[in-house]
Every structure is written in structure tokens, then in C-alpha cells.
């Protein structure tokens, strides 16, 4: 029962947070000069055409009125139109096309980061204070210090034969077999290995780039959690009973350390999903991160609002799930540290 109540509270608070967030963005972006009408009509338009367009679109109405209209449209599942996007598509269509790209990139990055990060952390903990530990910690420090855009440029130069943009070879199309929007999965389902190969080649460099931050953070947290656990009484007891070091490590320390790891991983994933702005920019990956950057820069009202809504919702939802999971697994966790560590930097 308590968990239900907790979930309900989180839901209501999340919703309120979203509305306030949306209002802030909605209001702020309209404070500035320019706006979509000027951008739509371009360098050659006359003032009269701009006024006409603003009027037709309702962009000359009071902000509060526009906001209420927008909210009621959103409530009816209409996120409006991205006026500066090619073909002026519906924002919802755009988001549902771009979000899978971000999901695929984030999941792949996590798939790289989790095993390698945990592995490195384990090595470091096992050799605490000795050279493998130092090497790992060095890698971990470097992982959060090298600018992602710099790393991306270096990788592109180091692998000149690898594709540097997009999700698929230009000549190929996923269109006929698209189901989940995750190319690696869709191509396997359809048994199209040519598509799978092309998609994975396009995915590797961005995924490696994006994985560095979570990998470094996971390695650090794994190491410190393991070290802390290894000092716990029951481990000492197991050691005293003559259990081998490896046995204690794998069967006793790891499972305990796994509990805080869950929330760490969840938060990392949430951060990546919320838009790998820089990675997507360097590799021109057609995902939400790039979309929201362009929308903010061009002041494409509809696109920006829609993207903020989606990103905010995903972030809040994932955070809520993590909290509930943590609560289920171990109530003590509510006051502990990984959440702070886990907030890295922009990816």
C-alpha cells in the first residue's frame, strides 16, 4: 500500500513539475525577438507578410492564452506543428521518429559502459592501491574530463573508414521493416543482415563516444561500493571462515554492491536518454538531442516545447521508477550517495 501511495505522489508531483517546466520554456522563448514567422519567411519577406503569418498562427496572442491553448491541445494528444522543420510535420510524428534513435544510441552506450565499467571497477577494487587500480582510476578520471566533442573528432580521424553521420548507409532504407525504430533489433527480426551490419557500423563510434562518461562513473562507483562492502562485518566473517578471496568477492560482495548500482545505472540511462546533445551533434545522429538543440537555436516553438515535454517526462518517469525500485530493494538507500555521483556532465 505504501508503495502505491508513494507512486501516486510521485506521479502528481511529476505532472506538476512538467507543467511548470513547460511554462518556463514557453514563456522564456517568447521573450526574445525573431520567432518562427521571421525564420519561416526568411531574408526576403516583408513586414506585412510576417504580421499576417503571426496573426494566422496566433503567435500575436497573449502568452498565457497561447499556453492554455497549447496545454489543452496537449491534453488531446496534439503537440502542434514544427514550423521550421522540413515539411512542417506534426511534432508528435517527429518525436516518435527521432526518439528511437536516441534510445538505440543510449542503450548501446550503456551496453558498452556497464560491463566494461563494472569490470574495471572490480579490477581496481581487487588491486586497491596498486598499479591496476591507478590505471583504472586514471582512465575513469580521463573519461569524465575529455570533452565529448573532442573525443568524437579524434575518433572520426582515427577511423576514417567508419561512417561519420546518420544511422544507416544512404542507399539503404529501414522503411519496409521498421517496427520498434531500433535498427539493430528491427533488422534482426526481419533477418536483414546487410541492414544490421550497416546500422551497427554507424552506431559504433557514437556509442563508444557516448559510453565514456557512464563507463567512468560506473567504474568509480563499482570500486568504491565494493571496497566499502569488503570491509563489512559479514565479509570479514566469511574471509575468516576460510572462504577464498575470489569466492567472497563474487558471491558475497558483488550482490550487496549491486543494490546501489541499480539506481546508478538507471540515472545514467536517464541522463543519456535526456539527450546526448554533443554526441548527436558531432556524429549528426538523428536523435532528440540534436533536435532540441536546433529547436532552441531556431526558436521553433512547437518543436522545442514538444521535445522539452518528452525529455522532461522521460527523465521524471525514469527517476520515479528508480526511486521506487530503490525503495523496494532497500529503503536505506533514500539518503545515500550515488544519485549525486551519477549526475555527470552533458553528453
Amino acid at each position, binding site marked *: 500500500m505504501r508503495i502505491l501511495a508513494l507512486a501516486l505522489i510521485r506521479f502528481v508531483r511529476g505532472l506538476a513539475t512538467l507543467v511548470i517546466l513547460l511554462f518556463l520554456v514557453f514563456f522564456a522563448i517568447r521573450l526574445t*525577438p525573431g520567432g518562427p514567422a521571421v525564420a519561416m*519567411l526568411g531574408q526576403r519577406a516583408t513586414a506585412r507578410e510576417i504580421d499576417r503569418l503571426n496573426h494566422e498562427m496566433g503567435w500575436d496572442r497573449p502568452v498565457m492564452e497561447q499556453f492554455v491553448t497549447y496545454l489543452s491541445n496537449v491534453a488531446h494528444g496534439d503537440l502542434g506543428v514544427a514550423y521550421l522543420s522540413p515539411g512542417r510535420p506534426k511534432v508528435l510524428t517527429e518525436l516518435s521518429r527521432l526518439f528511437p534513435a536516441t534510445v538505440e544510441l543510449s542503450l548501446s552506450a550503456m551496453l558498452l559502459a556497464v560491463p566494461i565499467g563494472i569490470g574495471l571497477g572490480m579490477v581496481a577494487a581487487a588491486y586497491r592501491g596498486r598499479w591496476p587500480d591507478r590505471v583504472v582510476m586514471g582512465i575513469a578520471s580521463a573519461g569524465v574530463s575529455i570533452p565529448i566533442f573532442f573525443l568524437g573528432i579524434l575518433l572520426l580521424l582515427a577511423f576514417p573508414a567508419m561512417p561519420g553521420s546518420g544511422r544507416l*548507409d544512404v542507399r539503404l532504407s529501414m522503411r519496409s521493416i521498421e517496427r520498434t525504430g531500433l535498427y539493430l533489433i528491427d533488422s534482426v527480426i526481419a533477418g536483414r543482415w546487410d541492414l544490421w551490419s550497416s546500422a551497427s557500423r554507424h552506431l559504433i563510434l557514437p556509442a563508444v563516444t557516448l559510453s565514456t562518461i557512464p563507463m567512468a562513473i560506473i567504474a568509480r562507483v563499482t570500486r568504491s561500493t565494493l571496497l566499502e562492502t569488503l570491509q563489512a562485518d559479514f565479509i570479514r566473517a566469511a574471509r575468516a571462515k576460510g572462504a577464498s578471496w575470489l569466492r567472497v568477492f563474487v558471491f558475497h560482495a558483488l550482490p550487496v554492491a549491486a543494490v546501489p548500482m541499480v539506481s546508478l545505472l538507471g540515472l545514467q540511462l536517464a541522463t543519456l536518454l535526456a539527450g546526448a546533445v554533443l554526441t548527436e551533434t558531432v556524429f549528426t545522429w538523428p536523435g532528440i538531442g540534436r533536435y532540441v538543440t536546433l529547436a532552441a537555436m531556431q*526558436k521553433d516553438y512547437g518543436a522545442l516545447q514538444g521535445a522539452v515535454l518528452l525529455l522532461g517526462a522521460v527523465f521524471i518517469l525514469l527517476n520515479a521508477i528508480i526511486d521506487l525500485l530503490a525503495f523496494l530493494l532497500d529503503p536505506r538507500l533514500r539518503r545515500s550517495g550515488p544519485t549525486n555521483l551519477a549526475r555527470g556532465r552533458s553528453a
Partner: protein
Amino acid sequence: MRESIWPLLLMMILGVTGCAPSPPPAHESILIYGRGQDAVSLDPADAEDGESVKILTNVFDTLVHYDENGTEIVPALAEKWETSADGKTWTFQLREGVRFHDGTPFDGAAVAFTFDRLIHPDNPHRYGAANPYRADYATIEKVDVTSPQEVVFRLKEPSGVFLRKLAMFPASIVSPTSMQKLGDRFRTEPVGTGAFVFVEWLSKERLTLAANKDYWRGKPAIEEVIFKPILEPAARRRQLLSGEIHMADELSIPVRKQIEKDPTLVLETCPGMNTAYLAMNNDHPPFNDVRVRQAIAHAIDKSAIARSAYEDAGMIASTLVPKAMWGHHPALNDYAYDPNRSRELLKEAGVAPGTKVVFYAMRNSRPYLPSPEQVTAIITQELKEIGFEPIVKSPDWASYLDQVGNGEHDICLMGWQTDNADPDNFLFALLDKENAIPPKAHNLSFYRSEEVHQLLVEAQRKTEQDQRLSLYERAQTIIHDDCPMVPLMHLDLAIARTKNVAGYKLHPTGLVMLRSARLEPSGSK
């Protein structure tokens, strides 16, 4: 532990990066064209951006068009035409037997339908078209259909530019049947009479056109063309090299140079009909003083801009009208780079050192200004050298247009790419007093010479090119002396292609016409 982890790690890293590249499938009749952005709208009355125009040019035809190598007006959907003595009535004989891609015949009614949409804001078939070019066609009073193969344009006043405006993309003839059937979906599913038939458009993903087998000029050499937006110029070069795409445009200067050096690729260039310039706001002191404006003209080292920011992929501009276009005044004595002269002029004009100058400089590259940030850096430094203190402002493009159109700048970078290869399109649009009215002024110098205005209006109404030329030369001389702006550069057009693309020629207007392009067998690479 040590033994097990490292090999595993290595294997993982090698395992993923070592995937074999997929061999390019041989689609030798499909041309893939890589470009910087996607199109925005495929309704001729709605489009504004260059990327949309690339599609429109291939899907639609206009009544008249430019010849293949230059900007002479030649017949297209109109076979011939004549003008009344007062220059206000134009009668066009239309080509027979032309059909739209939807199978309906092209006729006078389609012409009237197209232009009615273009000039009347309350046209019922506008379907949300933004119509950025309406002002260009405001001179049309009405279009009468006198027979299925004859239309008569009645103008409010005689115009020497009118015919050229008919060659511009907003005047592309649309299929009335499809337009009424599709409504605002026409914007994403255009139907015209052009060399290519629209197939499909996945926003930001790909836009596919197929050859129009019944095209009245003859069937295109390629079966299909795919326009693929690839944002970064460097990425486009990468994909040219891997053979993923066949052609690429909107190349940055460093990428142009890399392609030029590459033996497997070809970079085609030709002089462009565009001008980048520095506008000085004549309404803002001290730029109301001609000496101060001339001081700035003397302070800018155009050869340094040509060398550092254009890497010689362009020509130094001495007047607003591009060198590659008729109407260019060839004999103007440009202001020489001479900072000492600038300082003297400023002293005479009483401008104190340390005077602040609000300098608007865009940060997005434009068809006339490929490296705006480099040009900005050069000009700021040169302004500092003659004692100004520039304050650089670089908002996003929409805000930029809004603010400079409102006259908020002291000086600003701007430029123009021709629509119709007519000097009027530069001089009247950018320097006439009628266009110096904020907000959304186009004359960003806010230059209001009555003398120039008289010349430009007279030139608009003349239909003889020789008479117009001498009027435009006189206007350019006055403008040169008044120095309301500093013309900077004309950027060369450039397109990169793989070696097996043949038959494509750059058109000096920058229009991309793919009808004659073909793909040689890749053995001939």
C-alpha cells in the same frame, strides 16, 4: 582476474570495430545528392530556402527559363510571347501536349490558378502557403485566359524585370487538380510538369524523385535521384569518399580545399551571382557622415578576407552587382586598403578613438558568406586598428533578420544571392529608399538617395536592356561615392562529385537541374 579481463576487453573492442564494411550495392541508375539541410516546403508559393528550391526546380517548370549556360531568358512552358506598346500587357502562347505528373493537361487555366494563388492573399487555394515572394508579383494586375493555349498578363505598370520574375521558382506552374485534391498536403507531395516526378519524402531522412518518362524536353538520363540531408560538410565529404553519395553541395571552404586535393573526387566551380557586404546604418551617427563610411571602406582589407576566409574561392567585390551578372559596373575605382587614410578621415569627421560600434555578424554560413565567423574576426580586428571599439552581436538567424531589419545595428554583415539574375534584384531590393522602412527593411544601410531611387525606378520600367544597363551603371557610380555599404566578396559556386557522375553542369544562378546528369559505369572511375 587479470588474465581474464583484458583479453575479454580487447575482444569486445576489436569485435565491434572490426565489423566488415558492407560493400556498396550497385544502383547505378540512382543518383544520390548530399546536401546540408532538408527542404522545408515543396509548394512554390510557400518555399523560401535554397534546399526547397533544389527540389522545385526539378519537379516544376516555369513559363520561361534561363538558357543552359547563362541567364538569357528562353521559352519553357510558354513557347513565345509578345508585349503591348505600353509594356503593360504580356501575351503568352503556351506549349501544347504538356501534362502534369498527375496526368491532367497543362493549360491556361493552370497558369491563371498558379498566379492567382501567388498574388491574392485571400485565394481559397492558398492552404497556408506563407508566400514570401508575393511582393515580387504585386505588379501583376490579373491573368486572363484567352484560350487553353493563351494567357494574358495585365500589369499595373510597365516592367523590365517582369519576364525574369516569371523564371523564378515561385512562378512554377502547379497542377490545379492535385492542389485542390491534396490541399495543404501539396506542400509535401508536389505535382508539376518538371523533369522529375515526386516519389516520397521522409523528413530529414531522404527525398526521392523519379524520372518523368514523358518530359517535354526529353527523359532524364537517371532513373531516380535521392536528396539526402547530411548536416556537416565534412561528413558529406566522407560519404563522397566512401561512395555512399555521388554529389554534394554547400561545402565549407576547408572541405572544398580537401576535395580539390583529392584525386578520387571532382570539385566543379563557377563564379557565383551573389554578394556579401557590410551594411552601414546611415541613420546612426557617425555613419550618417560619408567620410566615416569611406573610412570603414578603406579599413577593410578585402584581399585578406579573400585569402583567409574564402581561400580564393571567390572574387573581391567592388560593387553590389556580382561580376558574373549583367549590369555589373566594371570600371569603379574601389576603395583601397589604407588604414592611415581611414584614421585621417575619422579625424576630419571628428570621430573619437574608442567609439563603440554595434556590429551584427551572423554565425550561420550563408550562400554568399561561407565562413561568417572568420570574416567577423577579420573585420573586428581591422575596426579596432582604426580606433573603433566593435561590439559583436550574433543572435540566431531569425532574431538577426528581425533586429537588423529593424535598424538596431550600426553595421552588419549581409548578402544576397540572386533570384533572377537582374541588377534590380540587387540594387532596388538592397539600396532603394522604398526598402529602407523598418521593421523588416531590406536596405540595411538605410540609404535614401533620391537620385538613385529615380534611376532605379526608371530602369524598372524600361524594357530595353541597353538603356537599363546605362541607368544601372550611373546608379552604381553614385552609390560607390556615397559608400552606404562595403561590398566584400562574390562566392564561387561549387559542387563536389564522384568521378562517375557525368553530364552535370553548374548553372551560374546556382539552380540545380539534374535532367542531364548521368552515372557512368563505375568501372570508368
